[in-house]
C-alpha cells in the first residue's frame, strides 16, 4: 500500500461557512508532506478533521488503505496518528514525564509508576535525538523544549504519522535547525510527517511533496524537487507575489524620535538596556536587528511607556516622553504594533470591532459624554476590515476566533489608521504567510513614503534587509552598529548581532 493516509474530497463547514471544500491529501509512507496555505486557508481545520477533533460533512478518510471514521482524538491515537498543535497543551506545573503520561498513566498496584514512565520517556527521547529531561518542569523549559515534549507525547502513544501545525512559528532560527534534524531522524525511524507551514524556505529544505490549499479549496499537490518558492507562493496566494518589496529611496526629514543614554531594567531586575542612543527621522524605516533577548522588548516597552526606565531620555517630536503613561505617549503621535499580539495587541474576548478602537474608544465619535456609540465603532471596524483585508466572518466575531494573520492585519489597521508620526512595528510578520507578509511590508513602506517614521524590530534578517532604510544592530542592550542595508550582507549582520563589534560602526552609533 502506497499511502498511509488518504483524505479524499473532505468538506468541513462551520455553521454555513465552508472552511474545507473538497480537499484531497495523500500521505506516502516515509515522506515529509507539506500542507501549504495562507492564514485562514483551512489547514488547521483539515488536520483537526484527521485528528478527530472535527467531523467532516463529506469525504472519506483512509488509513493504510482502510476507510475509517475518526470520531475523536483517541481513535486517531489508536490509528497511530499524533498531532503537535500550534498552541501546546501542557500542564505548566507538571514535569515532562507527568505531561507525557497524562491520560495514559502506567500504574503499578493502582499507583502511578513514574519511574518506569521516566525510563520509557528517556529511551524514546534518546532514540529520536530529542534531548529532553524527563524530570524537568514544563514551566522551566524553553518553548522549543516544550514542543519536543509534545512530540514525545505522540511518540509515547505509539504514533507513526505525525502532524505538525506550524511548528516553526514559535521557534528561534537555531531551534528551527534542530527541529529539522529531528524530522529527519523521525523519517529514518519509519515515521511519516505532515508539516503545516507557510514558510517556503522550510518546504524547499525538508519536504518531499506539498499540498496547497487556498481559501478552503484544494489547489493540488506538487513534488518539491519540481517546483520553486515563486511558483509555490503564487499557487498559495493565487497571484504573483513579490518577495522583495519594491521601494523608492528614502528621503529622511526631521528627527522625530531621539533616544539618549537610555537605561532600562528587565522584569528580573537585570540591566537590559545599558545607555542606548538612537535617532529616527521622518520618512525612513529604521530596522533594529538583533538576536532575541538583547533588550529589544525592554527598549520598545520603555519608549511606549509600558515599562519604567531608569534614566535617559526619549523625545518624540522634541518632547520628552520618558516614563509618561502609555496613553500620553500614544497621543503624542505614536503607533505601536506590539510583539505579542495576544498579550498586548488584542483583547481576545472582545469582538474584532471593539479591538479596532482599543486605542481610540474614549474619543469622539466612539464615545460621547462617557457613553459608547457602538454603531460608529462597528462602522469604523467595517471600513478597516475591508481596507486592511481582515478576513473575518463579521465585525462582531471575537478576536479570539481569527487566524494570526488576520489578527495582525486588524492591529496594523488600527495603528496605521490613527495616522501616527512614528510607527513601532515589533515582529510584525511573525508567524504570517507570504501573502500577509507582503501586505504588511507594503503598508510599512507606504507609511514611510507618506513621511512617517517607522521603527522595525525583527529577528528575521530577510525582513530587516528587505524593508529597512537603515539598520541598527542591538547587542546586549546597546546599539553596536548602524549599517546601510545596501552595503551590508547577511553574514556581516550576523557577526554584528553575535557581538563582534565593528569599531568605526560602533562610533557611528554614538553620533
Amino acid at each position, binding site marked *: 500500500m502506497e499511502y498511509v493516509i488518504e483524505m479524499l474530497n473532505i468538506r468541513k463547514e462551520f455553521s454555513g461557512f465552508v472552511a474545507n471544500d473538497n480537499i484531497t491529501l495523500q500521505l506516502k509512507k516515509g515522506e515529509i508532506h507539506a500542507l501549504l496555505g495562507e492564514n485562514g486557508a483551512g489547514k488547521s481545520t483539515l488536520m483537526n478533521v484527521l485528528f478527530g477533533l472535527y467531523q467532516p460533512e463529506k469525504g472519506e478518510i483512509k488509513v493504510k488503505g482502510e476507510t475509517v471514521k475518526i470520531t475523536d482524538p483517541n481513535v486517531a491515537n489508536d490509528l497511530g496518528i499524533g498531532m503537535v498543535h500550534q498552541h501546546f497543551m501542557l500542564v505548566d506545573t507538571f514535569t515532562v514525564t507527568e505531561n507525557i503520561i497524562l491520560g495514559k498513566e502506567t500504574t503499578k498496584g493502582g499507583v502511578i509508576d513514574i519511574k518506569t514512565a521516566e525510563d520509557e520517556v528517556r529511551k524514546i527521547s534518546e532514540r529520536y535525538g530529542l534531548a529532553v529531561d524527563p524530570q524537568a518542569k514544563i514551566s522551566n523549559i524553553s518553548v522549543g523544549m516544550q514542543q519536543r515534549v509534545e512530540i514525545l507525547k505522540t511518540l509515547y502513544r505509539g504514533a507513526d504519522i505525525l502532524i505538525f501545525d506550524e511548528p516553526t512559528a514559535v521557534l528561534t532560527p537555531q531551534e528551527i535547525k534542530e527541529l529539522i534534524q529531528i524530522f529527519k531522524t523521525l523519517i529514518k525511524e519509519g515515521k511519516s510527517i505532515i508539516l503545516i507551514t507557510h514558510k517556503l524556505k522550510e518546504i524547499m529544505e525538508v519536504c518531499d511533496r506539498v499540498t496547497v490549499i487556498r481559501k478552503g479549496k484544494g489547489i493540488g499537490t506538487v513534488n518539491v524537487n519540481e517546483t520553486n518558492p515563486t511558483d509555490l507562493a503564487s499557487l498559495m496566494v493565487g497571484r504573483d507575489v513579490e518577495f522583495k518589496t519594491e521601494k523608492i529611496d528614502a528621503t529622511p526629514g526631521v528627527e522625530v524620535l531621539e533616544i539618549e543614554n537610555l537605561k532600562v531594567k528587565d522584569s528580573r531586575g537585570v540591566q537590559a538596556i545599558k545607555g542606548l542612543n538612537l535617532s529616527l527621522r521622518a520618512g525612513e524605516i529604521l530596522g533594529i536587528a538583533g538576536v532575541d533577548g538583547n533588550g529589544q522588548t525592554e527598549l520598545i516597552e520603555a519608549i511606549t511607556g509600558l515599562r519604567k526606565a531608569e534614566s535617559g531620555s526619549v523625545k518624540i517630536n522634541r518632547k520628552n516622553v520618558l516614563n509618561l503613561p502609555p496613553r500620553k505617549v500614544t497621543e503624542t503621535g505614536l503607533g505601536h504594533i506590539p510583539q505579542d499580539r495576544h498579550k498586548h495587541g488584542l483583547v481576545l474576548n472582545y469582538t474584532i470591532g471593539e479591538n479596532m478602537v*482599543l486605542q481610540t474608544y474614549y474619543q469622539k465619535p466612539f464615545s460621547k459624554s462617557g*457613553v459608547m456609540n457602538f454603531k460608529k465603532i462597528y462602522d469604523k471596524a467595517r471600513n478597516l476590515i475591508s481596507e486592511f483585508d481582515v478576513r473575518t466572518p463579521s465585525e462582531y466575531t471575537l478576536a479570539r476566533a481569527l487566524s494570526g494573520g488576520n489578527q495582525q492585519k486588524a492591529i496594523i489597521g488600527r495603528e496605521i489608521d490613527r495616522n501616527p508620526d512614528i510607527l513601532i512595528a515589533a515582529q510584525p510578520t511573525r508567524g504570517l504567510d507570504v501573502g500577509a507578509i507582503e501586505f504588511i511590508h507594503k503598508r510599512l513602506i507606504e507609511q514611510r513614503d507618506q513621511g512617517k517614521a517607522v521603527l522595525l524590530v525583527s529577528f528575521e534578517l530577510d525582513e530587516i534587509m528587505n524593508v529597512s532604510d537603515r539598520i541598527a544592530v542591538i547587542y546586549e542592550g546597546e546599539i553596536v552598529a548602524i549599517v546601510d542595508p545596501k552595503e551590508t550582507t547577511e553574514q556581516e549582520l550576523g557577526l554584528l548581532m553575535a557581538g563582534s563589534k565593528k569599531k568605526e560602526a560602533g562610533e557611528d552609533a554614538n553620533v
Partner: protein
Amino acid sequence: MQMSSRMKNILTPIIAVLLGVLVGTIIMIASGYNAITAYQALWNGAFGDIYFIGEVIRQTIPYILAGLAVAFAFKTGLFNIGVEGQLLMGWVAAIWVGVSFDLPKIIHLPLAVLAAGVAGALWAFIPGYLKARFRVHEVIVTIMLNHTALYITNQIIRSVLSDGKERTDMIADSASLRSVFLEGITDYSRMHWGITIAIICAIIMWFILEKTTTGFELRAVGFNEHASQYAGMNVKRNIILSMVISGIFAGLAGAMEGLGTFGYMAVKGGFTGVGFDGIAVALLGGNTAIGVVLAALLFGGLKVGALNMPLEAGVPNELVDIIIALIIIFVASSYIIRWFIDRVSKKGVK
C-alpha cells in the same frame, strides 16, 4: 448545527435547577417524605397567596443587589467574596443615618440609602486598593474583611447606636422604605419600595458594563490587563473602581434589609448569608443583569416557600437548603452540563 452559545447560557442554569430539584426529590423519597406534597407546599408557600408573593419579592430585593455586586466584579475579572461584609457595613450605615436625623423624607431616605452605598464602597475599596497596589488577591482580603465587618457592626450597634443593647432603635419613618401601599396590595407582607431600587440597579449595571466607556475599560481590564495597559487604560484605577461599584451594590443590599425589611439592625452571631447567596445568584444568572434578577427571584421563592414545607408537608426546611446547595453545585459544575449539551446537540445532527 451547533447550539448557539446564548442558547447554552440559558439552558445551563435551567438544567442545573432541574437537576437540583431531581436530586432533592430523591433525597426526600429516601428519607421517607412525600416529595409531591413537599413541592406543593413549597409552591404554595411562595406563590400560593398574594401575601407570600409579597414576601418572595421582599426576599428577592437583597438577593438582586448582592447578585449584582458579585456579577459586576466577576464581569470585570474580580471575585468579590466580600459582599457579605460590604452588606453589613451598608446596613449599619443606613441605620445610623436612619436613627440619627430627623429630616424630610425626600432628603432623609436618599441620604440613608446613599450612606449605605458609600459604606459598602469604602469597604470594597480596601481589597480593590490592595489588589491594584500590591497584587494581594481579593478573595483573601474580602474573606477577612467579612469577619471584620461582622464584629465592627456588632460593636457599633452596642456602643454607638445603643447603650449596650443588642439592637438599635427603629429608624425614623422618614428614612423607611416601607410602603403602606405595597403592604396593602400584598395582604400586609413586608414588601417595600426597595424593589424599585433593585431593578434600577440592575439596569444601571447593564448600562455601565455594556454601554459606557467606563464599562468598556472595566471589562477590558478584566479580560486582559496587558492589552488594557497597552491601550492606555489605567489598570489600577479600573480594578479599584470595579470593586467600589460592586461594593455600592452590596451596601445597597444592606440598606434594603435595614431601611425596608427590618427598620433596625441587631447584633449578629453570624453572617446573614445574603452576601454568599449572592455568589450563587450571580453564578446562576450567568453574571448578567437580567439573569441575576431572575435567579434572585428563584432563590427568594425557594427561601420563602421553604418556610411552608414543615407546616404543610412535615418536611424540614433544611431540605430546601439542601436543594439550594445542590443547585449551586450543579451551577458551579455547569461546564459539565455544557459539555453534555454539546454532546447531545452534536449527536442530534448525525
